[in-house]
C-alpha cells in the first residue's frame, strides 16, 4: 500500500512538473521570422459560446495572411489562452502568453472585467493589447492619454450606439414610449445609461426597466408587463443568443407588430429573423458589422468563415477577424514587428475595414462607423453609418 501510493504520488507530481517545465521550454527557434499573437478568450464553461467565435475569427484571418505570404514575409503564429470569462484566469492566460509564449501582441478578452484586469499586465510587460469585444467605457477612459499606453480598442463604445439608436427611433419612427429589457452586464447597463442621457432630447420616456441575467430564457413576465404598459419600443442591448428567444416570446404573447425591438444584439442575422419574422419586423439595430453588409471584403469573410467552420460568423467572429487584419496592417506600416513601432503605427493608422475607415483617438479608442439598420420584409436594410467622437470625462 505504502509503495503504490507513494509511487502514484511521485508519478503525478512528476507529470505535473514535467508538463509545466515542458511547456516552459517550448520556445520557438526562429523567433525573428514569426509574429507571435495571443488570443485571450473564454473557451470553456458557459462563456465559451462567445470565445469560440472569437477564436475562429482570428484563426481565419491568420490563415489568410499566412497563405498570402505573411506580412513582409513574416508569418503570424497564433497562441490561444482560455480566460473562462473570469479575471483571475484571464490574467493567468495573459501572463502565460507574455512570459511563456513570448507574444508581442494580444487580442482579448470578451468580458470587460477580464479586459480591465489584463490592462495593467500588458502595460507592465509593454505588450500591445488590442481589445475587440469589450464595451466597458472605462477600458479606453484609462487608455492612451488616460494612462495605459499599450491598450487599444477596436470596438465601438456604447455611447455612440445608444445615441444613434435613440435618435433614429424617435425621429424617424416617432417612438416616445420605451421599455428597457437589456442584459444585466456592463454592456447592457451602460448602453441604457447613455440612452437615458439622450432620450429627453427626443421627448422619449422610459416606462419600465428590466435587466436579464446571462442565460435567461423566460421573458414572458416582463413582456406581459410591457404589453400592459403600452410601450412602443423595447430598448434591448442584449446578447446575441437571447434575441431569438425574446423575439419568439414577443410572438407568443401576441405583441408582434405592436412593439419594436431597438438596440443591439444581432437582430440582423438570418437565423434570428427566421426565429420570429413577425416579431423582428421593423427592429432597429446599431451594429459594428452585419453579415449582409454589402462590401466585397465582408462578403468574402462570411463565405470563407461559413466554409471553414460550418456555421455563419457572428459579430464576435468578425471583430476578431477584423482586429487581426488591423494589426497586420499596422505591422506592415511599421515595417517591422517591433512592438514600439507597431504601436506608433497603430496610433496613426488609417485602416480600411470592410465597413469603413478606422482611426484611433488619443485614448486609443477606434473611431468606428456605426451601421444603423432596420429589418424590413425579413431583411436588414441599412439606414446609414455614423461616426462620432467620444467625449471623455475630465479626470
Amino acid at each position, binding site marked *: 500500500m505504502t509503495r503504490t501510493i507513494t509511487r502514484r504520488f511521485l508519478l503525478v507530481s512528476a507529470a505535473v512538473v514535467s508538463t509545466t517545465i515542458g511547456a516552459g521550454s517550448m520556445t520557438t527557434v526562429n523567433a525573428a521570422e514569426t509574429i507571435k499573437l495571443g488570443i485571450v478568450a*473564454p*473557451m*470553456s*464553461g*458557459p*462563456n*465559451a*459560446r*462567445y*470565445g*469560440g*467565435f472569437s477564436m*475562429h475569427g482570428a484563426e481565419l484571418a491568420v490563415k489568410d495572411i499566412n497563405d498570402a505570404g505573411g506580412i513582409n514575409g513574416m508569418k503570424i503564429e497564433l497562441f490561444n489562452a482560455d480566460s473562462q470569462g473570469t479575471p483571475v484566469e484571464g490574467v493567468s492566460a495573459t501572463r502565460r502568453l507574455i512570459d511563456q509564449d513570448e507574444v508581442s501582441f494580444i487580442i482579448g478578452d470578451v468580458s470587460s472585467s477580464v479586459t480591465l484586469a489584463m490592462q495593467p499586465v500588458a502595460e507592465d510587460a509593454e505588450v500591445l493589447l488590442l481589445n475587440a469585444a469589450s464595451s466597458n467605457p472605462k477600458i479606453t477612459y484609462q487608455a492612451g492619454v488616460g494612462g495605459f499606453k499599450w491598450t487599444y480598442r477596436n470596438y465601438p463604445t456604447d455611447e455612440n450606439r445608444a445615441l444613434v439608436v435613440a435618435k433614429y427611433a424617435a425621429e424617424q419612427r416617432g417612438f416616445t414610449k420605451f421599455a428597457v*429589457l437589456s442584459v*444585466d452586464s456592463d454592456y447592457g447597463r451602460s448602453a441604457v445609461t447613455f440612452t437615458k442621457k439622450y432620450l429627453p432630447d427626443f421627448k422619449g420616456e422610459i416606462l419600465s*426597466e*428590466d*435587466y*436579464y*441575467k446571462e*442565460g*435567461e*430564457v*423566460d*421573458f*414572458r*413576465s*416582463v413582456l*406581459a*408587463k410591457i404589453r*400592459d404598459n403600452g410601450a412602443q419600443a423595447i430598448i434591448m442591448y442584449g446578447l*446575441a*443568443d*437571447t434575441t*431569438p*428567444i425574446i423575439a*419568439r*416570446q414577443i*410572438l*407568443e*404573447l*401576441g405583441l408582434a407588430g405592436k412593439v419594436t425591438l431597438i438596440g443591439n444584439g444581432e437582430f440582423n442575422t438570418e*437565423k434570428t429573423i*427566421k*426565429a420570429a419574422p413577425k416579431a423582428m419586423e421593423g427592429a432597429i439595430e446599431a451594429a459594428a458589422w452585419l453579415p449582409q453588409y454589402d462590401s466585397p471584403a465582408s462578403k468574402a469573410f462570411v463565405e470563407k468563415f461559413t466554409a471553414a*467552420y460550418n*456555421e455563419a460568423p*457572428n459579430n464576435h467572429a468578425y471583430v476578431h477577424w477584423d482586429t487581426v487584419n488591423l494589426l497586420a496592417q499596422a505591422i506592415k506600416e511599421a515595417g517591422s514587428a517591433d512592438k514600439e513601432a507597431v504601436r506608433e503605427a497603430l496610433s496613426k493608422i488609417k485602416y480600411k475595414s470592410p465597413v469603413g475607415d478606422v482611426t484611433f483617438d488619443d485614448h486609443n479608442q477606434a473611431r468606428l462607423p456605426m451601421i444603423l439598420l432596420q429589418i424590413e420584409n425579413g431583411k436588414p436594410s441599412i439606414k446609414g453609418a455614423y461616426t462620432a467622437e467620444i467625449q471623455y470625462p475630465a479626470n
Partner: protein
Amino acid sequence: MFSTLLEQVVNGIVTGSVYAIVAVGMTMIFGVLRAINFAHGEYYMLGTFGAWFATDYLGLSYEASIVVGVLSTVVVAYVVGQLVMRRMVGAPAESGVLATLGVALILQNTVIFVFGGGYKFFSGGYIEPVSILGFTLAEQRIIILVVCLLVFVGLELMVTYSRLGMAMRAVSQNVECCGVVGIDVPQVVLRTFVLGAALAALSGVLTAPVNVSVYGGMGELITFKTLPIIIMGGLGNVRGTFVAAMILGIAESLVATYIGLQYRDTVGFATLILMLMWRPHGLFSTQARF
C-alpha cells in the same frame, strides 16, 4: 390587474413544470445516494444537444428528436453511472460535490469541444401561440405542462408499485439494511440515476423550442435553479419537489413582473434561505416520500 396576476401565475406554473421535471430526478438521486448532483443540469443540456443534433444534422422531425435526445442522454448517463455514481455509495458529502463537479466539467466541455462553443438555434417544436383565459401561450408550453403532470403521476405509481420504486424507497430509508435484505444498492443507484438523467433530458428537449438557444454551458444555470427546489421540497421527496418547483416558478414570475427581471435568478436561493430560517428542516419531510 387580476388578469395580469393570473397570467403571471400561469407563466410561473409553466416555468415551474420545467424545473419540476429536472428537479425530481435530482431529488431521487439524492434520496438513494445522499449526494447533491452538481452535474444534473448537464443532462438537460445533453438532451437538448441530442435533439438539436437530430433536427439539424440528421434532419429528423421534432418528435423523433425527443427520442434521440433522451436516448443519447441515457447512454451517457449509464456510462457516468457505472463509472462514477455507483462508486459514490456511502462516500462523504465532499466527495460527492467534487465528483459531480468533475462530471459536470467533463460533460460540458466535451460538448463544447465536439460541437464548438458557439450557440446554436433550435428549430422545431410547436411554437404557435394559442389563446386561453384571455392570454396567449405557445403550444409547446401546454405540452410541457401536460408532460410534467404525466411524469409526476407516473413517478408516483412507479415508486409505489414497481420493484425499482420499492427498492428506491428502501435504499433511501436505510442503506445498511438493504444489503441484508438482498437489494443491490449500487444497481438501484445506477437505475435511479439514469432515470433522473433521462427526465432532465426530456425537460431539455421539451423546452428547446421555446428557449431556442442551445450551447454547452446551458446546464449550469438549470443546476442552480434546481438546487434550491430540491432543498425546499425536502430532499428525496417527490411530491414536495413538485410543490417547491411550482412555488419557485410562480415566485420568479411575480418577482420578474413586479420587482425586476434582474432579481429573478436570486429568487430561488433567497426563498430558500428565508424558508430555512423559518423551518430549518424544509417545507416537507426529508423522510424520502417517494
